[in-house]
């Protein structure tokens, strides 16, 4: 039997959300022990509140009893942000899934945190609007989770990540009080708390209402696919496109292995014998789109593209994107499990880092496949393995760490859009000084002095965190697969 919370806590929480939405049997704890990452830990209790008031009341109970709590959306995170690493209470926000207000003239919508990303766009698309951030999991992931991890997506190249599209929110603070930050209109002055809370991964509280910026959908869109026989040429094309000053809405790269897996899974129409493909999308007013696509086409061909084609219909366009968005799941066709990284490099170092990744794979005898947001240098290497092979698992962690080291060395960073979670918090010392981290710690403890909101996440746990990163060979295997 896994540990349980104090019966008093259980009954208080049941009093708030109703017995039907409190779970603590072994089966139920197991069902809330994972997300889309490899990290696992079981909560002591799960509750699924039905309103912001219930969330606040649950947090008050947790705070009073000093029980840690973790907010959870759809569980599609890939950095373990919603994993209850210290046990405690998982507060699942999936019932808070209402779109509370849509204001087209003022271009904003107020949503509850459990609203699925794509559902917001679907709600406003007939009126010619959309919510821009589009993580690959947008059919599933929640806006609350997007805010927590400051999620990105293929189209963030042109439009920026989640923090560029959040205007304000209602937050339950770690002591259970409710506060409102930001506003639907112009920046209200004072500290930019909306900026602070976006990407805080549930360590500063739980958003219960979120004001999202709505954007005008583009008048026209064009999606292109360029195929290459050499990865180097594809990387060079990316650099050339960005250098030419044509900023596509999305510029994605996929390598040979992922192309094959995706083709087997969804039949997106990618050439299975290419070494790399670029999926390029441009959008904007109809006038000018032809010029942009001509520029992109000639740049792609200049760098040796063996095929360049433009989707001729919306159906064909959706098919091309279906391949890209289904890549994550399709990877399981190659090996049973993957470890997905999210490092970022300056775009001019793409080719360098791709070679580094290939060398790392060879050195550790691993298969690493790549599908990533090339346009903004945001890598997504999938390191594939079989969880039953303990030595392979060990090598997977070594390789992952080496790839992230390489990203940081060439002037990049640890995460583009997945967040830090419990996966990379010990590496924060690679990119921040002790003073930087201390500033963050002081902000965190000012808002959560009791340390109950998603403890052990984002910031390094040790006092001298920079030196505490896992030494080679000490990957906590059991906890990570």
């Amino acid at each position: 039997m896994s540990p349980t919370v104090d019966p008093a806590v259980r009954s208080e929480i049941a009093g708030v959300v109703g017995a039907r939405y409190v779970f603590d049997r072994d089966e139920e704890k197991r069902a809330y022990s994972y997300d889309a990452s490899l990290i696992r830990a079981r909560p002591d209790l799960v509750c699924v509140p039905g309103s912001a008031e219930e969330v606040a009341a649950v947090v008050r109970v947790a705070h009073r009893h000093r029980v840690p709590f973790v907010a959870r959306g759809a569980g599609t995170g890939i950095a373990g942000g919603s994993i209850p690493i210290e046990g405690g209470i998982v507060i699942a926000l999936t019932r808070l899934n209402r779109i509370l207000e849509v204001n087209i003239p003022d271009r904003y919508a107020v949503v509850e945190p459990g609203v699925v990303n794509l559902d917001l766009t679907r709600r406003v698309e007939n009126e010619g609007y959309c919510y821009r951030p589009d993580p690959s999991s947008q059919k599933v992931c929640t806006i609350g989770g997007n805010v927590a991890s400051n999620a990105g997506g293929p189209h963030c190249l042109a439009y920026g990540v989640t923090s560029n599209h959040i205007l304000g929110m209602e937050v339950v603070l770690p002591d259970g009080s409710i506060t409102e930050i930001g506003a639907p209109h112009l920046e209200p002055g004072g500290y930019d708390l909306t900026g602070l809370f976006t990407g805080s991964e549930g360590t500063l509280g739980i958003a219960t209402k979120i004001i999202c910026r709505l954007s005008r959908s583009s008048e026209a869109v064009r999606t292109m696919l360029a195929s290459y026989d050499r990865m180097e040429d594809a990387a060079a094309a990316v650099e050339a496109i960005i250098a030419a000053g044509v900023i596509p809405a999305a510029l994605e790269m996929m390598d040979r292995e992922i192309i094959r897996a995706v083709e087997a899974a969804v039949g997106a129409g990618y050439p299975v014998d290419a070494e790399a493909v670029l999926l390029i999308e441009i959008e904007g007013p109809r006038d000018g789109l032809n010029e942009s696509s001509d520029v992109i086409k000639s740049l792609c061909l200049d760098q040796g593209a063996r095929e360049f084609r433009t989707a001729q219909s919306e159906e064909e366009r959706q098919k091309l994107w279906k391949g890209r968005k289904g890549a994550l799941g399709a990877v399981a066709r190659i090996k049973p499990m993957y470890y997905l990284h999210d490092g970022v490099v300056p775009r001019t170092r793409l080719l360098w880092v791709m070679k580094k990744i290939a060398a790392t794979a060879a050195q550790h005898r691993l298969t690493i496949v790549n599908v990533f947001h090339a346009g903004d240098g945001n890598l997504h290497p999938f390191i594939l393995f079989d969880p039953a092979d303990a030595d392979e698992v060990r090598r997977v962690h070594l390789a992952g760490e080496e790839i992230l080291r390489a990203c940081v060395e060439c002037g990049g960073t640890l995460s583009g859009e997945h967040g830090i979670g419990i996966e990379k918090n010990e590496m924060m010392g690679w990119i921040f000084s002790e003073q930087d981290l201390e500033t963050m710690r002081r902000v965190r403890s000012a808002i959560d002095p009791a340390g109950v909101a998603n403890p052990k996440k984002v910031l390094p746990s040790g006092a001298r965190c920079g030196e505490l990163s896992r030494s080679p060979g000490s990957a906590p295997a059991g906890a990570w697969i």
Partner: protein
Amino acid sequence: MTVEPSDFSAAKDCVSCGLCLPHCPTYREYPVEMASPRGRIELMKGLAEGELQPGPALEEHLSLCLGCRACETACPSDVRFGHLLENARAVLKDAGASGWTSSALRRLFLNQVFPRPAVLSALASSLRFYQTSMLRRWVQSLLRLMPGPVERLEALMPDFTAPWSAPPPELPAHGPERGVAAFLTGCVMPHCTGEANDATLEVLRHHGYRVLTPKDQRCCGALHLHSGYQEEARQLARANVSAFEATGADVVVTSSAGCGAALKEYGDLLSRDPEWAERSRAVESRVRDVHQVLAETDPPPPMGRIALRAVYDDPCHLLHGQGVSLEPRQLLRAVPGLELVEAKEPDWCCGSAGIYTVTHTEMSLRVLDRKMEDLLSLEPDIILTANPGCLLQLRLGVARSGSDVPVHHVMELLARASRGPDLTGPDELRRHGLTGERTR
């Protein structure tokens, strides 16, 4: 033959990406992880590893699944969820983990009723008598005084009022013969959706098929399989394999999506039985849903005009279980005068799911209500589907919504079109229905 750990190896293919979540009707209605495909796979992993034991918690969470397999269509890793679920339910059933009432109910229907044509027939006759006599009104007024499960059951009961007699073992094609089809009648269909069976025969013949209906066929075993009664399902499968291989027909045809999906997995079901493995695979390879067979007829036979606005609702076991969704639409679009409109969520389950309506009435009706809202918002003159369970469930949904839109099997409409004369519009449909004169 019991379930082996290797029967759960498909669970390892799940990378917990969660892309299945928005496609799962129970998760959408009850958004907790245990009510999602990913959560259920996790529980089944626990069961396979021996970490979780068969018991009330697993039974509760795994029995809530409709088995619609929408998650399989959504899964980028190709996890065979339906297969996993059948195995898990078999483990739970063998461990006696099912609750007393639901397992007693299941046992009664799965062992004593569906596999026995005589019992089923007698039951249908008694229900027919009940539904046509004064007795029903008397019982209903009595039940109103004590609402509860029995009252609900009474209200959910399908219509048994039209008796159906089995067709002769062989019926010639109308016109030149294109092929020979062996027809699976299904166990319940003859008694509550007999018109759909008649229509299937008629349309097949109209398309040039000679139709054989072997007398010794049995229930397909789908309901048994979904409830964990694997051995019973295997027995029925063997009986059907032997009945259908004896016909020598080009194709084995059914107009019941649920039965078709089960027949198409006979090879898997009997794969460990040396005597039957090959024979079952051979029969399985000839199984086609009736829409698949008809859609291949080239050129299609002439059809009369049917001036109706129709919506087609995909049965889960046709769409997800067999990957058939274009063929019914293709056939309907070919009917002159018919306007085919599309629902917003054609892939949403209707909540029928075999005996789920009886075992999980509340969830079933919630899923159904969402379906009806979608379908009725299109203001169709007629709702069409391709599975008897869905047919009955949608009729229940229409009644619950206070509407009177008729619900029929696609075959009934095609039969009417092939029979002629033109159907002039909704008024005529309301007055005379689709059946008209029986032609057999």
